[in-house]
């Protein structure tokens, strides 16, 4: 299969390219950018005039809900949704049922995703058996089976000694550990940021120290062990300040935020919209603004969707009883573009946050649009408005805080491994 993508505005964070170029693809690779290769006869030509062509998106957290939660969504449905969102590589957290704590489960997942169309799937293995926070998993075996990192997903790790041991064991094999900083005691029973809205609505609260206390522990143990730690889903200004200091002190850490947290705050809870029941909780406007500037500053390494499709029955409940999470893999690009527009950040820098930089965190060869690289690309219309609705979302999870709202920027084509995996039929 040979593809010619004509006249698109090509954006590549790696080379810093932002210019109109033709792209030539053959045998799953980018053959050339700009210059016509000799004897190139495409089977397919895509007219990308007025569109942006960038590396395929790399999403650090997409729940495919299999195994175990097929009533919420299926692997096929969410892979399709991810492709429609321009995602060509994704990491899936281990919070399935059973959790990804055995090599056999991971091999099965890899096998199934390899044999279906859609993005490349990189499983994140469970850090502890059953995510119980007690016994280490067979990290080396899991890594051989295809796990790219290890995490507790959103499950608590109560015993600090287990955390220390897990980091030490991971260091042995130089395996990355992804941790979402949250002290389980301070967060217990909480569903909303401990601030003005929780005070008003009477929702059980999660204070900012739930993040910072856990973060302090993680930072100290990271320094102690030299582990490769990635901090997932930062939510507070105070937490980001600590990450800034730690990075400044030379600690080898990275961090991400979820796309919803770049735009929403506790204020969006006022009508008890269960679609705004997220993990970590949406915090104050001050915290939200700190996330927005930390992204511009480069302190935050990546934006992910933290995609969590939830069935209607589990969402149409009182706020605190509703299953947390929002479906968002199809909103990752438009929400990142929205941030860039509002903050007047160059498109190149915005794209970097959802392509090259998360690819580096994953340690995979992706997120680069240059000759010789795998042909994983996203072609999108940066201006095109569309309305988020149950019909427009391909994910089986219709749980979006943006339902009924208009966003700008829509993926037109997703090319994975040199094939058109998704094409929008206008």
């Amino acid at each position, binding site marked *: 299969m040979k593809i010619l993508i004509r006249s698109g505005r090509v954006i590549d964070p790696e080379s810093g390219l932002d210019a109109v170029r033709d792209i030539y693809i053959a045998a799953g690779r980018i053959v050339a950018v700009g210059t016509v290769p000799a004897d190139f006869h495409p089977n397919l030509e895509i007219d990308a005039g007025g569109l942006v062509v960038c590396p395929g998106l790399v999403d650090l957290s997409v729940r495919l809900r299999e195994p175990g939660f097929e009533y919420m969504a299926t692997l096929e449905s969410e892979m399709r949704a991810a492709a429609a969102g321009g995602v060509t590589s994704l990491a899936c957290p281990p919070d399935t049922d059973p959790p990804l704590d055995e090599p056999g489960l991971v091999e099965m997942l890899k096998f199934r995703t390899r044999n279906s169309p859609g993005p490349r799937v990189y499983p994140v293995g469970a850090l502890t058996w059953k995510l119980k926070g007690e016994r280490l998993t067979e990290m080396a075996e899991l890594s051989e089976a295809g796990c790219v990192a290890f995490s507790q997903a959103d499950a608590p790790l109560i015993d600090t000694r287990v955390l220390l041991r897990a980091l030490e064991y991971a260091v042995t094999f130089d395996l990355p550990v992804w941790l979402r900083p949250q002290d389980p005691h301070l967060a217990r029973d909480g569903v909303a940021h*401990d*601030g*003005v809205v*929780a*005070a*008003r*609505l*009477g*929702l*059980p*609260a999660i*204070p900012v120290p739930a993040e910072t206390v856990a973060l302090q522990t993680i930072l100290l143990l990271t320094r102690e062990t030299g582990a490769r730690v990635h901090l997932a889903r930062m939510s507070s200004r105070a937490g980001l300040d600590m990450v800034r200091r730690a990075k400044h002190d030379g600690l080898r850490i990275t961090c991400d935020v979820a796309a919803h947290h770049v735009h929403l705050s506790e204020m969006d809870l*006022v*009508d*008890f919209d*269960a679609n705004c029941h997220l993990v970590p909780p949406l915090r104050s406007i001050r915290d939200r603004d700190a996330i927005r500037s930390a992204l511009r500053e480069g302190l935050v390494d990546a934006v992910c969707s933290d995609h969590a499709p939830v069935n209607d*029955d589990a969402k*149409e*409940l*009182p*706020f*605190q*009883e509703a299953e947390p999470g929002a479906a968002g893999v199809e909103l990752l690009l438009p929400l990142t573009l929205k941030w860039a527009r509002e903050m007047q950040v160059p498109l190149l820098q915005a794209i970097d946050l959802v392509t090259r930089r998360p690819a580096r965190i994953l340690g995979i060869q992706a997120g680069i649009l240059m000759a010789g690289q795998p042909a994983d690309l996203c072609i999108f219309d940066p201006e095109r408005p569309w309305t988020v609705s149950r019909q427009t979302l391909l994910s089986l999870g219709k749980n979006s805080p943006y339902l009924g709202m208009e966003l700008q920027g829509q993926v037109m084509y997703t090319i994975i491994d040199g094939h058109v995996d998704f094409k929008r039929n206008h």
Partner: protein
Amino acid sequence: MNGDLQLNADGSLRHLLTLDGLPARILTQILDTAESFISVAQREVKKVPLLRGKAIFNLFFEPSTRTRTTFEIAAKRLSADVVNLNIASSAQSKGETLLDTVANLSAMQADMFVVRHAASGAPHLIARHVAPHIHVVNAGDGRCAHPTQGLLDMFTIRQHKGSFHNLRVAVVGDLLHSRVARSQIHALTTLGCPEVRVVAPRTLLPRDVDSLGVHVHYRMETGIKDCDVVIMLRLQNERMQGALLPSPQEYFKYWGLTPDKLRLARPDVIVMHPGPMNRGVEIDSGVADGVHSVILNQVTYGIAVRMAVMSLLAGN
């Protein structure tokens, strides 16, 4: 907040979910209407036909005796048909969802749901899903709101003090878990009370409670000084010992309302309590049964206020 959900397009009341954001004119309208129902209770025949033929379902997902009973009496005095459902022990335990329960009862031609639920926002969820002719009254949801209690407290204050404009009011006790306190605070600030204080140890105050427009006092000595109204809150048993408070004894010593402490307030202070009281924990019997107490009046007024709310929502 939630203004759109509880008001009709013409600004009249459609549901009563919270006093947060409800305009003063609606609060006053409810209090004025309640005033007209006080006399009904003194008649030989304690009934008016305002809700004749209407079916009211008391949906209690959490146990309650007093609130459910006063709603029932209020509905019956308005000539409505009342069905009491104690759902904690029926459908929900069989796995039926909240919205399924409501849909089933709606199919039985309900006109109004009076809802109590342990989760904040549950009545809002129901209100968003019921047919347009059905009204929802929140009878207490989680820690969020207990609007009819808040209204009957305002009614009590107005009966004894005339207006809200020169009052200093203290709300004392477990603010963190109290839906009653939240409704009282919203009503007091909306009705123009110039100084609302909250008095509690830091463990029983929500963070950012001052954003509700109240003055925070940790100690009774400063908190109730020169107050015209002191509202005591119930302290739940399970919160008397542990990480929130060391013991009921220490709580009583520092935050329990005794005749001695009450002398710090204005000489004509009134003392209120939403009930049920823990004598010797948050309130001394000398105060509960004393001359400043209007606690039993609150109960009586509660029926008139609930009649007012239900008749304004669904009156013929």
